[in-house]
């Protein structure tokens, strides 16, 4: 009879589970097309390393704890399979296997169950004492932990009873179950072994099936989606955004779920709500409205809320009936103010254990605000008009662009006569402090005998800020102009001193059919030093020097070592590191177009970073980006009595010549 009841419950559970999964995942298909199946072998490898191997998970505090639960789950999946199968066919079990193999499995299950139990206890303790973020102590989190703990305990009792009954060999292969068997024998339950075994078998069965059916409705959906989500990750860096087709009748950006891609939507189901993105986020951690975790969660909520509309219209969804993704920040939407506080630094994506791509979603929503509603912080009106009319953020006359080099006798770029184009960038050409960097860089290049030319007044802004700010229409115009100019002049190799120009020329312009060899000056100088074309005559007098990683050089383009190597050689001393460095570096606050926006909320991001730098008691803070330069110069000026100087690495190298 029990056997029949179990089969009925199991069939019902499996059907309900399949139906729930189908309902949830069908929602994902409302998203726009995106091809994520190229390089399947590489994808498989990534999945093994990052999902099965939990590489990112274990890299941060308490990650190992998750790893233990996850790996134990993998092993115990076998035990649970046996559990369900023997529920239907009592004669089928691992006991049919050769004894040594059976013993080995029992040992593995015993150890893994214990490990999972301990890890669950640690997780519960951690969530109670030191939660990953405020609001992490949810009923759901504790419910899941207690379900897992119950499963493990029930497993031990069921096995203990069997050992006590002599149905299982009570050898050293099952140390925990043996112990439990002995405990049972010491309690009144010893007189009712059969009943005790039954009760716990049913507890195990009900909790297991309940757990399975709860998954699709909780953040633990990630148990199902995280592994495929890693397989479907962006195989390159998320350092660029897709182009838009500017034709009449098209819509631009995303304010409703169907304007996001299916992968964006799958991301929202894969979020484990671990809170690592918000810890890494410069906006979240300095008191701004943006919280990347909540933004991803809002997309999921939004998708679920709009599920009814989507179902009825079978994918052909009417946006006006849809709850917007951008709104008051309540259930299912994100405040516009939050979207504007993103610095596009990419720390969230670097921290995410399941490779959720936050930045593309933010830019898509910004694109909607700018392009469909012309709604953006007021400072940006001037920026956009200056960029459109004069191709620089300050609205300076284009004829002033070459003024910084009026004393320098630079050569104009000419294909065949000059090897590199030195793309100075707006900051390097117009900003007083960064003009000094440009001059220093030309000194370094000249000292190494590099053949380079400039575009002078003809150079235009690369468009980085407008693209990250979501003004894709304007970026498209600007990119086409510069791409056309490069093609007609035969530019193939470019040196930039700004990581924003660097990434735009290197990664964004590729979408316009322009493949360039782009070197950030730190890379070129590193190469020149290595090849012996540049030899420091003396050590640059910088004192203790600490390096700040630029997000667009480091995290977005993986250039971490070149600036360090250059500094080491130019100063003859070790480079001091801040607590958060390389891929964990903290943004200066100026990326993603934030350079042109006031920081009205929370504490300034640059203040936070400057304090982190000053904790190393440096004489010099070294940067490799004109925006970082401005943010550090401004931040250090605020610190009373600080004599710390900010230098670009080109300036440090120039001092060593």
């Amino acid at each position, binding site marked *: 009879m029990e056997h029949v009841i179990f089969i009925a419950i199991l069939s019902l559970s499996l059907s309900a589970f399949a139906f729930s999964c189908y309902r949830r995942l069908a929602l994902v298909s409302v998203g726009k097309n995106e091809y994520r199946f190229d390089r399947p072998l590489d994808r498989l490898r990534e999945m093994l390393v990052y999902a099965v191997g939990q590489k990112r998970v274990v890299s941060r505090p308490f990650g190992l704890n998750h790893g233990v639960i996850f790996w134990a789950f993998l092993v115990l999946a076998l035990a649970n399979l046996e559990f369900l199968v023997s529920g239907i066919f009592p004669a089928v079990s691992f006991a049919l296997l050769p004894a040594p193999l059976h013993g080995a499995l029992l040992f593995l299950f015993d150890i893994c169950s214990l490990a999972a139990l301990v890890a669950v206890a640690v997780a519960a303790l951690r969530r109670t004492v030191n939660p990953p973020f405020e609001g992490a102590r949810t009923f759901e989190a504790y419910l899941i932990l207690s379900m897992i703990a119950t499963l493990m305990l029930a497993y031990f009792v069921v096995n203990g009873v069997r050992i006590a009954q002599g149905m299982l060999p009570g050898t050293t292969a099952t140390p925990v179950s043996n112990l439990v068997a002995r405990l049972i024998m010491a309690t009144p339950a010893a007189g009712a072994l059969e009943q005790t075994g039954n009760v716990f078998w049913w507890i195990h069965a009900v909790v297991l099936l309940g757990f399975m059916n709860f998954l699709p409705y909780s953040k633990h959906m990630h148990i199902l989606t995280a592994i495929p989500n890693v397989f479907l990750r962006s195989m390159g860096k998320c350092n660029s955004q897709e182009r838009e087709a*500017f*034709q*009449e009748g*098209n*819509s*631009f950006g995303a304010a409703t779920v169907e304007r996001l891609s299916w992968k964006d939507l799958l991301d929202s189901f894969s979020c484990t709500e671990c809170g690592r993105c918000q810890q890494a986020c410069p906006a979240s951690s300095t008191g701004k409205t943006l919280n990347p975790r909540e933004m991803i969660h809002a997309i999921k909520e939004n998708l679920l809320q709009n599920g009814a509309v989507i179902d009825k219209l079978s994918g052909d969804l009417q946006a006006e009936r849809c709850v917007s993704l951008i709104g008051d920040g309540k259930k299912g939407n994100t405040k516009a103010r939050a979207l504007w506080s993103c610095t596009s630094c990419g720390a969230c994506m670097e921290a995410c254990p399941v490779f959720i791509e936050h930045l593309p979603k933010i830019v898509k929503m910004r694109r909607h605000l*700018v*392009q*469909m*509603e*012309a709604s*953006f912080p*007021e400072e940006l*009106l001037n920026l*956009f008009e200056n960029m459109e*009319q*004069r191709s620089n953020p300050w*609205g*300076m*006359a*284009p*004829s002033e662009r070459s003024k910084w080099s009026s004393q320098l006798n630079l050569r104009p770029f000419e294909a065949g006569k000059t090897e590199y184009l030195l793309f100075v960038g707006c900051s390097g050409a117009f900003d007083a402090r960064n003009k000094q960097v440009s001059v220093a860089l030309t000194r370094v290049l000249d000292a190494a005998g590099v053949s380079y030319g400039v575009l002078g007044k003809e150079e235009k802004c690369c468009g980085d800020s407008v693209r990250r700010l979501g003004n894709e*229409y304007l970026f498209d115009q600007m990119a086409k102009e510069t791409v056309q100019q490069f093609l007609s002049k035969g530019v193939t190799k470019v040196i930039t001193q700004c990581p924003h120009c660097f990434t735009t020329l290197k990664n964004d312009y590729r979408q316009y059919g322009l493949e360039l060899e782009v070197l950030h000056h730190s890379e070129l100088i590193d190469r020149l030093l290595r090849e012996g074309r540049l030899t420091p005559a003396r050590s640059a007098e910088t004192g203790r020097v600490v390096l700040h990683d630029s997000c667009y050089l480091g995290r977005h383009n993986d250039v971490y070592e070149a600036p360090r190597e250059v500094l080491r050689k130019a100063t003859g001393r070790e480079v001091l590191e801040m607590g958060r460095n390389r891929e964990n570096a903290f943004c200066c606050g100026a990326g993603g177009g934030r350079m042109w926006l006031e920081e009205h909320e929370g504490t300034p991001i640059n203040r936070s970073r400057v304090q982190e730098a000053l904790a190393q008691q440096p004489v010099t803070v070294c940067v490799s980006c004109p925006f970082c330069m401005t943010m550090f110069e401004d931040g250090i000026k605020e610190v009373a009595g600080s004599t710390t100087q900010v230098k670009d690495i080109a300036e440090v190298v120039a001092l060593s010549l």
Partner: protein
Amino acid sequence: MLVVACIKQVPDTTQVQIDPVTNTLIRDGIPFIINPYDSHALEESLRLKDNHGFKAVALSMGPPNAEATLRKALALGVDRSILLSDRVFGGADTLSTSNVIAAAIKKLGEQEEVGIVFCGKQTIDGDTAQVGPGIAVRLGYSQLTLVDRIEKIDLVQKTIVVRRKLEGRYEIVEARLPAMITVVRELNRPRYPTVPMRLSSAKAQVECWSNEQLQLDVNSVGLKGSPTWVSRIFSPERKEGEIIGDGMNDPVGAANLLLERLIDGDMLAV
């Protein structure tokens, strides 16, 4: 009821240079922009459209390439853009310009009642601030200059109350409609075009009116109708500057030297 925004396409003056030989502006390769004050006039006309149900018309007199500016006005949301362009209008001073624009507004008024005409307080190339008042006088409209706030519009009584921004004071003025209003930049914050509007404006029709439509006496327009003309444009001569002190090595000393010089030259007087 119509609201008309008079806008002018001007060379981006930060980029204008003067040909030392001919004493004229070098216009080649200089980008054109909408006169900054006019963009506020345009914005206010769009606000009247949004909030009071006016129909907004953008009007510009200029060479055929001024169409670009009028197209931008369409992208921002005006209902009609009209270019007043004819060889006989060329070389106009402020008097003959206001003749042409006034005639165009009068013609618009034959189709639908004109309530308000907005102009920028002046253009950044001519800087005369005369065309707006000239239009008002020729049309017999109330003339409200230097307006930085629209206080009230009463479409039943056909009156308007505005605030004028004058030196050191404000003036609240009530006037009868129709009125010609010149605006200062504090009046509003111009909007930014949405992409769908930009794309649709690219194909939209900018109407072009020549003297055939306006039927003005050719002696009252263009160079012939202009009692004034520019005889010469030149940059004021500037004495060569000098570097005072050694700012790199002794910034405090250099600053002191500079201060002394400013005080000696009585250049810090308030």
